[in-house]
């Protein structure tokens, strides 16, 4: 049901019945190791190219999600997935193998919550019994496309971020046990004329602030109605900037209630510079770490605001600014 201009309220409470979270060796050394289902031992994932490894991550995550839900791949009506690679081929190639009707998505690193919002909408409107949705990224495949060859020696600034390797998937259903999806706000593309592709947190922060303020306004609630508000991959600088922007809008969120997936994924000793990023970042941390916390009743209500920078290497070289987007989805504990 539409509430305001861009917020959906899901009265049938679509349920996340299972998740599949898979990472690489760098994620294994991270902060939330225990929340993963599986780690590949190297970047190649037993494949012969980074792009094939990227597809393997998605397939592995889907195996875990499906087996944990005790259903078959063929029970899933729709597969909603995206990544950062040109023409989202890793997602499409995984969908080919999974043989599930597929909608390819792209909102850069906000894809995870775009998929969750649309998936919840499909379940809520009784257009599907089971939907599998998520997002993935592969550090080397993404670096290769967006920046330099992986072994090229360039000095990264403090503001740069580390693209996560992994795939995070969730299976949604109308019934069943698990956290419920209660609402979603689809974000607008916001561009504050920033140009530095090594400072994406700063570019994305205004989009996050816009979506958060719109969500709160259209649902007529306060930040304190959520236990946590979690952004996707703003990382250290972007999170600080987003808090400042929200403060300017007279929305005050305490520091400890405003977290960022990019700061939760890796430990501080890892060389991630400002923090993690990539479309897998918010998917891994939400579907692994925070869903587990909701299941354990450590958390009751969270708002996940995945943030994406909608740039390409071409737009950067043509000196265009970085347009950004943020999608918000609220997840609550089902058992009251």
């Amino acid at each position: 049901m539409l509430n305001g201009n861009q917020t959906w309220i899901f009265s049938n409470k679509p349920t996340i019945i299972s998740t599949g979270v898979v990472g690489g060796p760098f994620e294994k050394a991270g902060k939330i190791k225990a929340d993963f289902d599986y780690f590949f031992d190297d970047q190649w994932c037993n494949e012969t190219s980074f792009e094939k490894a990227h597809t393997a991550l998605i397939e592995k995550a889907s195996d875990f999600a499906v087996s944990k839900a005790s259903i078959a791949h063929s029970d899933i009506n729709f597969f909603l997935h995206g990544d950062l690679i040109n023409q989202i081929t890793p997602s499409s190639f995984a969908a080919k193998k999974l043989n599930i009707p597929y909608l390819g998505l792209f909102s850069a690193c906000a894809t995870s919550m775009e998929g969750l919002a649309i998936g919840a909408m499909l379940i809520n409107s009784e257009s599907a019994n089971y939907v599998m949705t998520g997002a993935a990224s592969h550090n080397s495949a993404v670096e290769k496309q967006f920046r330099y060859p992986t072994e090229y020696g360039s000095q990264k600034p403090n503001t740069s971020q580390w693209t996560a390797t992994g795939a995070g998937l969730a299976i949604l259903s109308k019934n069943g046990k698990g956290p419920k999806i209660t609402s979603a706000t689809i974000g607008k593309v916001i561009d504050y004329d920033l140009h530095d592709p090594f400072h994406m947190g700063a570019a994305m922060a205004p989009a996050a602030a816009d979506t958060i303020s719109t969500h709160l306004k259209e649902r007529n609630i306060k930040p304190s109605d959520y236990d946590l508000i979690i952004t996707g991959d703003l990382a250290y600088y972007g999170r600080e900037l987003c808090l400042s922007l929200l403060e300017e809008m007279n929305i005050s969120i305490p520091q400890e209630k405003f977290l960022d997936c990019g700061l939760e994924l890796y430990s501080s000793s890892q060389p991630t510079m400002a923090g993690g990023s990539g479309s897998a970042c918010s998917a891994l941390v939400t579907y692994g770490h925070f869903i587990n916390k909701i299941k354990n009743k450590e958390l009751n209500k969270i708002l996940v605001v995945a943030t994406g920078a909608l740039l390409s290497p071409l737009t950067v070289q043509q000196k265009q600014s970085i347009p950004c987007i943020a999608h918000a989805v609220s997840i609550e504990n089902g058992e009251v």
Partner: protein
Amino acid sequence: MVQTQNSYKNLVTKKTDNPPILLNCMKAFVVGGFICVIGQALSYFYMYFFDFTEKTVGNPTVATLIFFTMLLTGFGFYDRIAQFAGAGTAVPVTGFGNAVISAAIEHRTEGYVQGVGGNMFKLAGSVILFGVFSAFVLALIKTILNLWGN
């Protein structure tokens, strides 16, 4: 909107730590200098043990440095050293070698002709182009000055 954008840009500048330029320069000086010392040692080595002169020793020295760069790049160490050293590893000939070798490694999954061959110089190509072009311009200026001087 422009005003909002500008005030946000100011906020970004304020909240972002400046890069440690002085420290980076010192690191680049030490590491870059160290690479040059190795290069000089190699030059003496080739001049002392082989039949090279000060004029001809450049080629084997550069080839040896690039060979070591190839090993360091292939085994995944060069980019880590570069994160510390910055310009110190980018400016010497090892930086040029790394740019070519890393691109060659990266694109070998796309085949030897279109992958390795087509992409090997995607970073280093502009160095060659503008290097050759600026040499041409300087040679032209020198020639004109010589003619004029005579």
